[in-house]
């Protein structure tokens, strides 16, 4: 019997969602423990003492932290369809682009949604350049991973359910069908994927979450852009 698998996560976090996607694609059953980020649990602090963040994967007694580290762990520790490609060069490409998403892409797009005025213009420009690079990576494929979702699709999950929600809550449109038709198509493939359906986030719940935190995020974006 395989030891139980649990995720300490949060329904509004795309990083937490990456882990759910990976387990879903691998066919591994799991329990999701919802964390209250405003009042972090003893369990979270004990299992991720270095960063104190979600997501954390609990596999029996083992705790694994950092979403992409967790996804690679899931790919290697469990049997099931491969998440990363087999060829070393293809793996390097997948890792390059997931690194791109975490180090170059994520912050500007977040700032582009939550900032305003002059400061917003620069991050919108940067975001569109980044989106164009990702658009090009799709290159006629259904998913970044090919016919089925892979490592980069998991890493890019924010471009699925979260974009529609953020655009609705902030009124800012970035990922439009004219400039980014492949990314928009990808988002549709993603939301209609049977394999991923069980872990699809609840859209209304996401809208409620981001609406509730709108002023907080706008304040954070303003502060970050002033530095």
């Amino acid at each position, binding site marked *: 019997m395989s030891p139980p698998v649990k995720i300490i996560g949060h329904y509004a976090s795309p990083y937490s969602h990456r882990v759910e996607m990976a387990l879903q694609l691998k066919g591994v059953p799991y329990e999701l423990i919802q964390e209250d980020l405003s009042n972090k649990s003893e369990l979270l602090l004990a299992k991720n003492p270095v960063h104190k963040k979600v997501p954390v994967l609990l596999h029996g007694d083992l705790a694994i932290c950092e979403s992409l580290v967790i996804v690679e762990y899931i790919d*290697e520790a469990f049997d099931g369809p491969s998440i990363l490609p087999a060829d*070393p060069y293809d*793996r*390097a490409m997948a890792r*390059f682009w997931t*690194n791109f998403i975490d180090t*170059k892409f994520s912050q500007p797009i977040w700032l582009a949604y939550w900032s305003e005025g002059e400061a917003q213009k620069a991050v919108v420009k940067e975001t569109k350049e980044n989106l164009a690079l990702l658009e090009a990576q799709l290159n006629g494929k259904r998913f970044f991973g090919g016919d089925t979702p892979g490592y980069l699709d998991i890493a890019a999950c924010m471009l699925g359910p979260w974009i529609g929600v953020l655009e609705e809550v902030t009124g800012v449109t970035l990922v439009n069908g004219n400039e980014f038709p492949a990314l928009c198509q990808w988002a549709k493939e993603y939301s209609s994927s049977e394999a991923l359906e069980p872990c699809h986030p609840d859209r209304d719940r996401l809208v409620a979450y981001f609406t509730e935190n709108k002023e907080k995020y706008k304040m954070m974006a303003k502060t970050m852009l002033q530095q």
Partner: protein
Amino acid sequence: MAAAAGVELRLLGEWLSPYCIRVKQALAVKGVAGYEYVEEDLEHKSELLLSSNPVHGKVPVLIHRGAPVCESLVIVQYVDEAWAGPAILPSDPYERSRARFWAAYIDDKFFPSWEPFFKSKTAEDRAETFKNAIPAVETLEKALTECSSSEGKPFFGGDSIGYVDVALGGYLAWIKAVDEVAGTSLFDEAKFPRLAAWAERFAAADAVRDASPAVEDIVVFYKKMQAAETGAEH
């Protein structure tokens, strides 16, 4: 053109860059020799660099049979997977996840907490920023204790140099150079005995010695860098 087509393996780098140093260290650990090393002038980046790394335009870039791989830790993992030789990452999935976790910590937390220190211009700034770098060093001392286990193995990778060792190792010559100029000791033997011992063992390893720049050369560069910055302020 003909020369480029015939080259099996080429590394575009810059001798001072910790990220390039770590790739050289990884290639040496893996036993990959005979590659062409190209020293880039980062003020005048070559066409080859810009076309091989269009997204970031940065070194290091490993070009294998004409195919470029970018981002130092991505390159290290590629080297580990594409060549036979001593393993850089462990084979157990959990051990691998731990190695990846600590390598990410070194780049995302440790280095950014130390960077302000070596960029400090006044003695006052230096005292403050050095203090701020210590918590991350404490965490790394604990990590090394965890990774090297109760048997007190010499490296983060256990008996031999591994992924976390080269991740931190890329910065080591710089750390030593800055310590020498500033009169500090980041991996202080009294406070961080395991890291201090690790630093000595790592620097002495054959693979590392040939792949790393001389600390004295970085000292010369660093002193010039500091003088230039102070000069600019007058």
